[in-house]
């Protein structure tokens, strides 16, 4: 019910903005400009609404803040599995979500997909060491993408983009509970005749709120105090439990 209400109000907003569609070929809006991580946060989803002018297909790509990841490879040595090799990747998106009204490789030629990093196969995941073995780098980065997909942090076509009529479209973006905090960039592309006609960038902020933010900031800004505080709480809890269980 609430979702319906939300949807229709966003529709109204999109329809209003369609006046400015005269000037722009693509207009996009989100059901919320911010994702709040609070104590009960267990992942969330947002709705993206948009309107386009003229024919064409639409691709939505969501990219999370960049991060650094190390991939370790285990091999059996002396009967046990040991990390024998590792490769660090710099500046990979912590989150990556693609949604489109049909498969992206049916819309755009390979070189365009690569240039704009559209689709799971075209995310640029480059090893930190420039002299890394190419075959090895491919195996390691493929493992990294597999892991991200398993954790629902990378996804392609999990929710297809739907056209409501010639003009209006919508899609759903899911964020799992382990999503990174920071600024997310949502790129919406309008595609016509194997070409990107125009694109719109919408920013989304994922932030910790309330107690969660306070604890996190306390731990990072006053680490020593935080540690002492943690110990005091633990001592008090131990004493309290003992007092509560004292035989009367």
């Amino acid at each position, binding site marked *: 019910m609430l979702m319906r209400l939300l949807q229709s109000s966003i529709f109204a907003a999109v329809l209003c903005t369609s006046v400015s569609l005269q000037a722009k070929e693509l207009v996009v809006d989100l059901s919320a400009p911010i994702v709040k991580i609070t104590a009960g946060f267990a992942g969330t989803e947002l709705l993206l609404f948009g309107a386009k002018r003229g024919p064409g297909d639409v691709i939505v790509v969501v990219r999370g803040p960049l991060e650094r990841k190390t991939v370790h*490879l285990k091999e059996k040595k002396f009967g046990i599995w040991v990390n024998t090799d590792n490769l660090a990747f710099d500046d990979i998106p912590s989150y990556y979500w693609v949604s489109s009204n049909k498969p992206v490789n049916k819309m755009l030629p390979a070189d365009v997909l690569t240039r704009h990093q559209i689709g799971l196969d075209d995310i640029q995941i480059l090893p930190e060491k420039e002299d890394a073995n190419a075959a090895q780098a491919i195996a390691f980065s493929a493992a990294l993408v597999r892991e991200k997909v398993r954790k629902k942090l990378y996804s392609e076509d999990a929710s297809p983009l739907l056209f409501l009529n010639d003009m209006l479209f919508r899609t759903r973006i899911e964020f799992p509970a382990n999503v990174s905090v920071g600024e997310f960039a949502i790129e919406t592309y309008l595609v016509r005749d194997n070409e990107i006609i125009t694109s719109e960038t919408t920013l989304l902020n994922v932030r910790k709120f309330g107690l969660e933010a306070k604890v996190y900031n306390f731990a990072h800004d006053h680490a020593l105090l935080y*540690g002492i505080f943690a110990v005091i709480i633990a001592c008090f809890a131990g004493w309290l439990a003992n007092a509560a269980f004292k035989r009367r």
Partner: protein
Amino acid sequence: MQIYLPIAEMSVNIFLILGMGGGIGFLSGLFGVGGGFLMTPLLIFIGIPPAIAVATEANQIVASSVSGVLAHWKRGNVDIKMGVLLLTGGIIGSTFGVWLFTFLKSLGQIDLVIKLSYVIFLGIIGFLMLIESINSMRASKSKIRKKAHTHNWLHGLPFKMRFRKSRLYISAILPIAIGIFVGILSAIMGVGGGFVMVPAMIYLLGMPTAVVVGTSLFQIIFVTANVTILQSVSNYSVDIVLALLLLIGGVIGAQFGARFGGRMQGEQLRGLLALMVIGVCLKLTYDLIVTPLDPFSFGVGGH
């Protein structure tokens, strides 16, 4: 019901964590071990990042040890003098241990070192304890009295002190050395170190079992408090929300454990602890030997 952990940056089921805390807390009170050697692997198993699991578990052990030591205190089972010497060594050892942890992490082999230390220490100690407790159970059945302890070169060391509560006259170097060693393990393995210290106190120092548990808990409080603070400062890895949930379950469980343990015989307790230590050891060995689902593993940042 899900709750979001602010430092671990993930959401967990609140009842799962409470239940884990309660179960391990019970064992902790029963055996006088911090329970960390069970809890840390369990936390990692449910998906908590290892660095967070190790540091947060140290914080939780502070609480369960305080709760446990108070129960033993009432029965007069804490040798303060011995405890202070052990914890002097423990503070030195754990400070060095946190430094060593950071160093091994930079080499990219911390996971393996943690697992291998678990396998080696749990294996040796569990096996020795099991044999010993079987022997003493047999001995007590045939009514043969064992000598309290035997004299060896350890009793020739200088700085001898009298420990009234433990009915011992031994060198102060011994408990300090044990403290240092256990402190290092404490920082690297994310444990209180009770599973090493309890046998060391019984077999190396020759302390009576009744005093061992309370005294071990007493020193664990200070060593794990030191680890908690050092980990907070150097790695920001103590998740206070996770620790709170674990300790709510843990302190309650520990109370029941201590009550229950008071009704059991020393040999039986030691035999049970030995079986559990061997169980965890076998599980970890299995994980090292069996082919992993994915030969790749992943870390944030690092080298």
